[in-house]
């Protein structure tokens, strides 16, 4: 296994121009989500770290994608600001999927947190991205303004794409003032968690979430009853809830059960953005 650790978008661009398959790694905390990546070369984000700009008056931060979330939170904390991600202190907090990690990982995975109903989640915090495309071209989406409808909302393609459409090297984020108190819990918990990380995340229409969780993960699960998000430690294959979806960690080719259809559009995106399948090949195998 070879590890490449570019220090900038342009170094990453040179690397990508070689045209070899790469496994993109932040802190590698979500390795077990999705399918295994087939690549002997690792692109590590460890040298692309640091806060480029934090404008406390604007509640906006520009961050290199390899920056550990903890570092970002520490910087923000100095101004009594933060990204509203639940702290992982108690066993219950472990149901917050896949934290900690890097900023790039946070955006690429777009996993729900147990505060989603309050904070709206990662997808909402991203104002702009710098992408190194599979062919090495560097492209930006979005802006540093908190409102922007100039052109297509291109960054949406990369949020939650697990690194398969482009390498995220820089992220413009909305940040928040720390509130005096965090919201009451919307969570219903079954069983004893003991800090076991969740291996499945399912989303269902809110009204169905309860029934679905009780029948599918009877002994242990946590449900956010406002967003219909279910976390469960399971290694058993289960079907996605009606009209919903499930994602499982470490289960090979059936990790993703998308809501039918439109896979042609997803394949077109993959073909147009990464025609040679160089970026995290295999990661979305259950999907595409």
């Amino acid at each position, binding site marked *: 296994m070879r590890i490449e650790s570019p220090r900038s978008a342009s170094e990453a661009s040179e690397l990508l121009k070689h045209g070899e398959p790469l496994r993109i790694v932040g802190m590698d905390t979500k390795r077990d989500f999705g399918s295994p990546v087939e690549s002997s070369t690792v692109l590590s984000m460890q040298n692309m770290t640091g806060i480029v700009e934090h404008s406390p008056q604007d509640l*906006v931060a520009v961050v290199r994608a390899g920056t550990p979330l903890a570092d970002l939170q520490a910087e923000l904390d100095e101004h009594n600001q933060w990204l509203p991600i639940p702290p992982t202190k108690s066993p219950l907090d472990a149901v917050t999927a896949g934290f900690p990690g890097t900023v790039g990982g946070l955006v690429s995975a777009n996993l729900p947190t147990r505060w989603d109903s309050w904070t709206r989640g990662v997808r909402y915090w991203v104002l702009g991205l710098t992408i190194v495309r599979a062919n090495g071209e560097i*492209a930006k989406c979005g802006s540093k*303004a908190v409102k922007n409808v*100039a052109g297509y909302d291109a960054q949406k393609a990369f949020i939650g794409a697990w690194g398969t459409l482009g390498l995220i090297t820089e992220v413009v984020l909305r940040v928040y003032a720390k509130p005096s108190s965090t919201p009451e819990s919307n969570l219903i918990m079954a069983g004893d968690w003991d800090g076991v990380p969740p291996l499945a995340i399912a989303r269902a229409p809110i009204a169905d979430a309860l029934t679905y969780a009780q029948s599918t993960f009877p002994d242990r699960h946590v449900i956010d009853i406002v967003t219909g998000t279910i976390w469960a430690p399971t290694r058993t294959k289960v079907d996605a809830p009606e009209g919903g979806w499930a994602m499982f960690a470490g289960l090979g080719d059936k990790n993703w059960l998308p809501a039918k259809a439109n896979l042609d559009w997803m394949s077109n995106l993959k073909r147009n953005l990464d025609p040679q399948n160089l970026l995290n090949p295999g990661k979305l195998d259950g999907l595409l």
Partner: protein
Amino acid sequence: MIRSDEWLAQGLASLLTETQIMRGEAGQMRFTIAMRTTPSKRNWTPSSFHCSTEEVAEVVKWCVKNEIPFTPRGAGTGLSGGALPALGGVVVSLTRMRRILQIDPENRALLAEAGCPNIALTKAATPFGLHFAPDPSSQTVCTLGGNVNENSGGPHTLKYGVTTDHILGLTMVDAAGEIRRLGGLTSSQPGYDLLGLIVGSEGTLGIITEAWVRLTPNPIAIRTVLAAFPNPRLATETVSEIIASGIVPAAMEFMDGTILEAVEAAFHVGLPLDAGALLLVECDSLHNAGQADNEIETVVRICRSNKAIEIRTAKTEDERAKLWLARKKGIGAIGRLSPSMVTHDGVIPRSKLPEVLDFVYRTVSNEGLRVANIFHAGDGNLHPIILFDDRDSRQVAKVVEAGEKIMRLCIELGGSVTGEHGIGVEKIDLLGEMFSEADLRLQEDIRRSINPGDLCNPGKVLPTQKSCVEVKLRRRVAT
């Protein structure tokens, strides 16, 4: 392929009933009036009015087979010419598809047809203590489909997020005429975020016929203040300070002395006429009234420290409506100040608001023109309205000049050339100034992944699409 308008109309008549097709003078009038743009030189374009997703699909398939461009259209309130048929062809109007199909209060969601006016969604949700959060100022007429395609904002999207944060699913007819469904009642989807790419695509990726929207619980406490300041600078500094204090109000709207003067002349609401600017700030809370109280107290304190000359608070819903009146009627009222006006739309990092607004006043007055400002201050989303006389071609050139200077400053500061009105045909050139060619190639690759053809609302959004538009629309000034 160029087809005569009569040929188009006859073709459509074979698919639809006569009452669904609008043509001739009526069609032309509708464009000139509703679009608020100067009439295009071309002859009228038949507009087909649809009543079902299947009918839309049939018309699109027919257009594709005959290589005829088609342009989706909602209420036509868009401010960048997005619903204008830049290459002629068929205008597909959704305004007859205006039913609320389903309300699901338990899942806080509502399914409506694309032609449904924005306000009707909230009306339907009210009995359940819920509402549709995006509230563009045009909300009594603009449609859900228009909101989805422009990714519209409004005063309260400062706290609650713009349209894209409230769309759960879509039914659409794609650019080939196939009916598709995306998303649904779950709050997100696995795989690529197609829904997120289609919202804000200005009708260039297909025609939306229905949408599942997220409903938001009504706040239990709303606190509203209207503060008057001696000059705009003190008001904009107040805005920056409020945001920097960590409060994100539900809404924070700015109106300057020119707006105030026009509103007062039209409606006699007793606004303090010596004020140079007004700030309307609303704080609300979903759970705990104390929080809204605390926030508004801080807001009032910051207003005072910035020399507010008068601060009005609302105790009842009636009083609240009065405080909002200047904001709601402001744009209409300035109609009396000038024969023509053009509304710009740019966004800047909000801490830069004081200096940028100074720049706006300076730039416009250097051109010998007047400007009125009424905008979503909390987002840093400027809407300078330049007043002029469109019969004077020298003035028109100056208006364009001043507008471009303002937009360039927005780009320089890392902001955007549009916060809510979109690119349409108006801002295609500016998009090329905000983004590099590589950035735009990425956008083009996304477009062709979803719409590989060139018939669905051609000539919009991307400069690569522009070459085929022969009309010189870009220098056009909305009047």
